């Protein structure tokens, strides 16, 4: 007997038992790459899970496994959840992409949702947020808050997602402050307080008085607080405990509404494989409160930028824009298409240094 037929038998048995007990709650599983207490990425996905629990109460049961390494272990945990009767599984890290596809193939009756990836299947949806819209607002504030004109940026990995954020922030910072310069440090981690703190200290020593981070811990916030005069922004979660200074605003991932909508779709039987990429407008990306440490006029213009991004009136990548090597990218008034943004592997003109290869 092959794995497929065994599994088909198991799922058949599972679905029979579901029909036998019609009141059985819908089971929704979550797989996290970090601990739920990381204060950033995983924390916000878990908030989304809690929102699902609150919305549906008894009708839905949620389960999760935290700190699951990407690769073979992820595949096993997903299978185990599917065997355990999960109807819908959210796999919340890019590195879960291939495992999700593999497991989904074996469990055609279980729906999967993979965050930040690009591989879809009949029972695999992908979803991500247009964090770069939030980066644009950060860049706008950062460009005006800096006095040294040096903005430090802690990158995680040189992948399109992160490069997009750097470009979006730089474009807006440059627009309000032509003398601004970005210093970028690659931490090669999503979550490592020690490495992140070190990266922040290095940037501060090099004269940065604003730190943007694409890593998930609050360590850079603490490093900035210790330095005294360095501005930061919360990443993934609000990190309000470091406000009103150094944290002057934040990008908040807000997964709750999406998770509730997808769970509802499974309950209703209307779930379909989709590709979702929502931004500020749909509420998937939130801009944390801009604190009073920011001058009132800057705050007002930042909020105006946020609103125009939300309404779609303005796009964070609007021409004229050149690539770093000076070649033309977007003509005046032209906006970037999603395909280019999804695979972005170049800096825009003005950024210095090379993307590590």
């Amino acid at each position, binding site marked *: 007997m*092959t*794995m497929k037929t*065994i599994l088909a038998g*198991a799922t058949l048995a599972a679905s029979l038992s579901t029909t036998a007990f019609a009141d059985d709650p819908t089971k929704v*599983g979550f797989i996290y790459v970090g*601990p*739920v207490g990381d204060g950033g990425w995983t924390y916000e996905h878990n908030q989304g899970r809690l929102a699902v629990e609150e919305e549906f109460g008894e009708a839905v049961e949620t*389960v*999760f*496994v*935290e*700190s*699951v*390494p*990407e*690769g*073979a*272990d992820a*595949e*096993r*945990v997903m*299978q*185990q*959840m599917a*065997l*355990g009767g999960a109807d819908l599984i959210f796999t919340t890290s*890019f*590195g879960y992409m*291939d495992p999700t596809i593999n497991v989904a193939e074996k469990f055609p009756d279980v729906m999967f949702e993979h965050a930040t990836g*690009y591989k879809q299947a009949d029972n695999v949806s992908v979803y991500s947020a247009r964090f770069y819209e939030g980066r644009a607002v950060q860049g706008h504030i950062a460009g005006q808050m800096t006095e040294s004109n040096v903005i430090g940026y802690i990158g995680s*990995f*040189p*992948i*399109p997602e992160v490069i997009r954020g750097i470009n979006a922030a730089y474009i807006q910072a440059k627009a309000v402050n032509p003398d601004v310069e970005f210093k970028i440090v690659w931490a*090669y981690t999503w979550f490592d307080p020690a490495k992140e703190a070190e990266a922040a200290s290095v940037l501060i020593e090099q004269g940065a008085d604003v730190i943007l981070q694409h890593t998930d811990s609050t360590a850079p916030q603490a490093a900035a607080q210790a330095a005294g005069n360095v501005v930061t922004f919360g990443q993934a979660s609000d990190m309000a405990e470091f406000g009103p200074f150094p944290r002057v605003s934040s990008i908040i991932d807000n997964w709750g509404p999406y998770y509730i909508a997808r769970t509802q779709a499974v309950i209703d039987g209307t779930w379909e494989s989709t590709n979702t990429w929502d931004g500020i407008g749909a509420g998937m990306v939130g801009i944390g409160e801009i604190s009073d440490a920011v001058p009132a006029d800057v705050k007002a213009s930042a909020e105006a930028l946020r609103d125009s991004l939300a309404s779609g009136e303005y796009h964070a990548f609007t021409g004229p824009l050149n690539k770093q090597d000076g070649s033309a990218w977007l003509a005046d008034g032209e906006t970037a298409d999603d395909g280019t943004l*999804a*695979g*972005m*592997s170049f800096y825009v003109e003005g950024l210095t240094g090379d993307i*590590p*290869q």
Partner: protein
Amino acid sequence: MLMLEKRPQPSKTWTLAAPILAVILTMICGGLLFAALGKAPLETIRTIFLDPLFSEFAWFYRPQLLIKGAPLALIAIGLSFGFRAGIWNIGAEGQYIVGAICGAAVGLAVYPTESIFIFPLMVIAGVLGGMLWALIPGILKVKFDTNEILVSLMLVYVAEQLLASMALSTLRNPEGMGFPGSRNLAKYDSASSWISENAGMHWGVVAAFIAVIFAYVTLSRHQFGFNVRLAGQSPRAARFAGVNPKLLVLVCMGISGGLAGAAGLFEVAGPAGQISIDFNVGYGFTAIIVAFLGRLHPIGILLAAGLMALTYIGGEIAQSNLGLPGAAIQLMQGMLLFFLLMVDVLTNYRVRFGKGATT
């Protein structure tokens, strides 16, 4: 009054009983911990230690035990040679990474050619890669008397950077739309280490069993095994017996590095499938616990690797079915080593009660 008296010879009984007692103590204290977290202790312990073997879905978990246990056993067997001889290779994690990179590079270089020679070549490259990475601290120790613990450990971090760089550039999947990570070797027939994915069998599992037999014979029947044990127990006597300590360092580092490299290759060509930034998940470090839990004995290591695999898989079941936090599982695995070291005192010392104790 409680007294500890050194035994003239380590107790044979306690050598065997210590790991079992450590497991029992871990279950008791783990149970108390789970109770404090508001979980039913017996149910949690049953979930972790028995469900992977005997539950409704055991047909799925049993093969997973092989997948999770094989790299642990393979690396721990390699480490046990050095550990017996007092040569401390702590950097198996790095050798595992480099082995995976070298082996995967061979497979990726010839993609998509199909040939039966590809996989054996990858294995050789993986073994050599791990071996060379381990020989760096070995040669430095022999030539400059550096500390192999520090050098081998530090090289883990170098290997991690190398891995990130490989996943982002040289070995990146050209069809991966700019995202990091190599092609999936498990889906490339000539390079896949899978024998039967459903049965959890890949060549790494086979290699682990062969390594166990090989190590058992070498340690108990061969001159080299005798030299290793002698060097560990009495370096001076070993020199009189004609053991070359420098050669022994190089050979032990080479064996442990080679097996760690092989483990990395089997993993990347099978269960993991691709070189990615986070490819390594700590097998190289966990294998150190496995080696000691198994008393540095090949059969013991095999059992210890199985036990460790059990706590990983059972731990995941407990997380998802009972809502147990991930850290509680790690805490329990830590307890296991802690209790083992504690109980180990009984192997080398006799406990005496009361005034009658001799001093």
